């Protein structure tokens, strides 16, 4: 075979380790791939240098060669990270290189973990490199809900303590302005405003290891932030009332502030208009199923004390069940039964 490694004097000292695909055991291995000669050769050299734990420039080049052929090869990424640090490479250069790979392969775990490994080096990156967030916004322009990129950005915020960085909230506002339904952006917003900070382990909510019903509850509440964020959520809801994201966000905000859902009863009622003729309810005009659900929850909480309020909760849940969210019928029924204090009969 006349491969590029075999014929390269730089690699003459390496005895490649050929692929063992298991067929020597006698039975044909499954889901095999008819690899290209280049890939077969490069990975044979990879096995050899990894077995010798070689840290070298040529090994670094080899990792790049394989990454370009198969960026999902997680082993080669981990080996590359090890070499980059051991050779004390210029990590900004490595990031630049990584940017190109990231834009080419959008759905990939390894790239983003590699970036996080580089960035976690306090020696190289005592502070956030200036172009980092610009690059992430470039990624979001390709896919504004890319899970790996959001996970990495969340990690960045915590690592560099960026919760109150003006850039963070500005980027979130800009992404929500272009698509108010970007739930990833709403999640990030929540973590910026109400997520755990350095005094607690990271979590989707503060107080995550407290009793489950008290998860998310802030120990010290900045009422101005709570008011601001509730206000922001209302403005976004008015733009598109059937968008679940800001309604969930508002629930999270109230939870953080230790305030009741009933604080928004009046707001939610604007989207659920009872039509009466001579005092009799004849119809309901609903502009948001989430408002109906909100009212159901408010009435259910109050309904423990008052029967008429419980009946209102059931009326709301029936609206959801019959008309506004009927695919979730069994769930709404379960909620109704909880209010009525009855057991739900097995329907399985």
């Amino acid at each position, binding site marked *: 075979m006349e491969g590029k490694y075999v014929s390269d004097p730089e690699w003459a000292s390496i005895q490649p380790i050929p692929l063992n695909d*298991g067929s020597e055991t006698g039975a044909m291995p499954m889901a095999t791939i008819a690899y290209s000669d280049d890939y077969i050769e490069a990975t044979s050299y990879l096995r050899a240098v990894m077995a010798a734990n070689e840290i070298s420039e040529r090994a670094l080049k080899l990792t790049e060669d394989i990454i370009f052929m198969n960026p999902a090869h997680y082993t080669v990424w981990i080996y590359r990270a090890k070499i980059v640090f051991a050779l004390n490479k210029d990590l900004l250069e490595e990031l630049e290189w990584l940017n190109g790979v990231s834009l080419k392969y959008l759905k990939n775990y390894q790239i983003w973990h590699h970036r996080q490994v580089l960035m976690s080096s306090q020696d190289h990156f005592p502070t956030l490199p200036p172009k980092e967030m610009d690059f992430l916004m470039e990624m979001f322009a390709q896919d504004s809900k890319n899970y790996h990129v*959001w996970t990495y950005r969340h990690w960045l915020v915590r690592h560099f303590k960026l919760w109150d960085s003006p850039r963070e909230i500005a980027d979130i506002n800009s992404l929500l302005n272009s698509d108010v339904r970007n739930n990833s952006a709403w999640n990030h917003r929540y973590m910026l405003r109400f997520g755990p900070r350095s005094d607690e382990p990271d979590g989707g909510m503060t107080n995550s290891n407290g009793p489950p019903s008290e998860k998310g509850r802030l120990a010290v509440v900045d009422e101005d932030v709570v008011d601001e964020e509730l206000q922001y959520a209302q403005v976004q809801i008015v733009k598109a009332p059937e968008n679940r994201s800001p309604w969930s966000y508002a629930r999270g905000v109230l939870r953080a502030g230790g305030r009741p859902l009933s604080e928004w009863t009046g707001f939610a009622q604007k989207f659920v208009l009872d039509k009466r003729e001579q005092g009799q309810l004849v119809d309901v005009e609903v502009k948001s199923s989430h408002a109906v659900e909100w009212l159901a929850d408010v009435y259910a909480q109050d309904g423990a004390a008052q029967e008429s309020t419980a009946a209102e909760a059931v009326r709301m849940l029936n609206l959801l069940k019959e008309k506004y969210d009927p695919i979730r019928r069994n769930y709404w029924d379960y909620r109704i039964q909880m209010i009525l204090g009855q057991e739900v009969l097995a329907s399985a």
Partner: protein
Amino acid sequence: MPVVIAATGNKRRKVRFPSSSHTATAQVEKLETRNIRAHLPKSSRTPSISALKYHQSLGQGIKMVESTTHPTVPSLFKELPAIRDALITETTELQSETLNKCLPFLTGSHSSQKDPLNRYGVPPLKRDEHIGYLYDSLEDYPSGFVGLDASRPWMVYWALAGLSLLGEDVTKYRQRTISTFFPMQNPTGGFGGGHGQISHCASSYAAVLSLAMVGGEEALNLIDRQAMWKWLGRLKQADGGIRVCEGGEEDVRGAYCAMVMLSLLDLPLTLPPEAKAREHGLETFTSGLSEYLSRCQTFEGGISGCPGSEAHGAYAFCALACLCILGQPDVTVPKCMDILLLLSWLSARQYAPEGGFAGRTNKLVDGCYSHWVGSCWPLIQSALSGTQTAAVSQKSAVGNLYSREGLTRYILGCCQSPNGGLRDKPGKHPDSYHTCYTLTGLSSVQHHHYHTDSSATSNKDFASAFSWKHRPARTSNDPGSDVNVFDENDCLKALHPLYVIPHKAAEGMRLWCEMKPL
């Protein structure tokens, strides 16, 4: 120079096992093109510019196909939701595009639906075609599939699990499974994605489950359990979580896969003496683990991949299944999760008219969530119902809290590819990942899983994980409640709700390991 032994495709034969009633030649002819296309669409998941343009012209308009719809399809599955906001954004454009693609399939009016619909307007399961597709998926792939090189253990698992669901006997693959995984195991413990790849939780999970499915002394004996235990010990982190590989990311996949392997292989719960996590005061694999999972619940109620990320269906399953391996669902789940908040989020994952599940808020339905979200349901329902005694009384149990009918319609109507294999949604190509997980979802609507106090294993650690029973799901007598809209002969086998392989395979591996304590 040494001769490099290549696994060249041209020397391999595309071996197929004959399956009951389809023509082998036709399948083989299709193989080449189908498999080439099968995995490519991954890169086209991002909306293309042309798709967006198409939708700007579409506005709020969705082409309805009323004239040709099947009369027995309920309006819920052929009409648009009652409320649709006027504001158009990228999210609604993609949603409209998806609805346009799904509606003809849901109403049974798409030209590619050649099989007669059943009395509920649902197409039959293309059983033979899916069996053929999965058999083909175990054979040789052209060089363009090099991107799967680290996922070959998954390819084997998806095919064997899918074939088991379809009632095929996969023990005939015992020798080939052994030869596939033999070079992937590392002497330092665990399996990598291929020869020379470092051990990874995902490939080890797929390897262990595949070996459990084919069973037999030789297959089970292949796993170096002592080395596996030591390797898993190196993945345990100070914060209670578990990495997917040494130097790799820490997330709930690591936690779930590790607990699956520890419990199936009956490995010691104590950390190996040399595990780094011991320096932080942790003594067992479970130390701090449920607290870690607890921190993955988000304000939406769902569960994220790692603390602070967005709630996501696939990670929700990993976290819930992990909690259910750790102990009884009615104990471990409410201890860590605000369960009503979780329930509300999980329930909101199901969309109409599509009927299928989306993985996150404001994302699209995708057949694979039939498992990731769908398989959360038996777990959370059991957490709410409590443990059932082995006797039959089910009166106190909560019923099914999602729409089994909707999920069935989405899977059978929208996810079946005409030539076999199942897919994310209409317009996408099938692949073995989606085939396995949509079929798992279909199985989960057909069987009622419940947790009991009677374990199939000896009463030791993880006895609770082996205490799941199932029975066929019945059509409810309650009018308007869920009906079985699939035909009797479209029934699939049940899989274990935590291990996602047949119960017998999981129990067989566990019992075999119990007889060989480390």
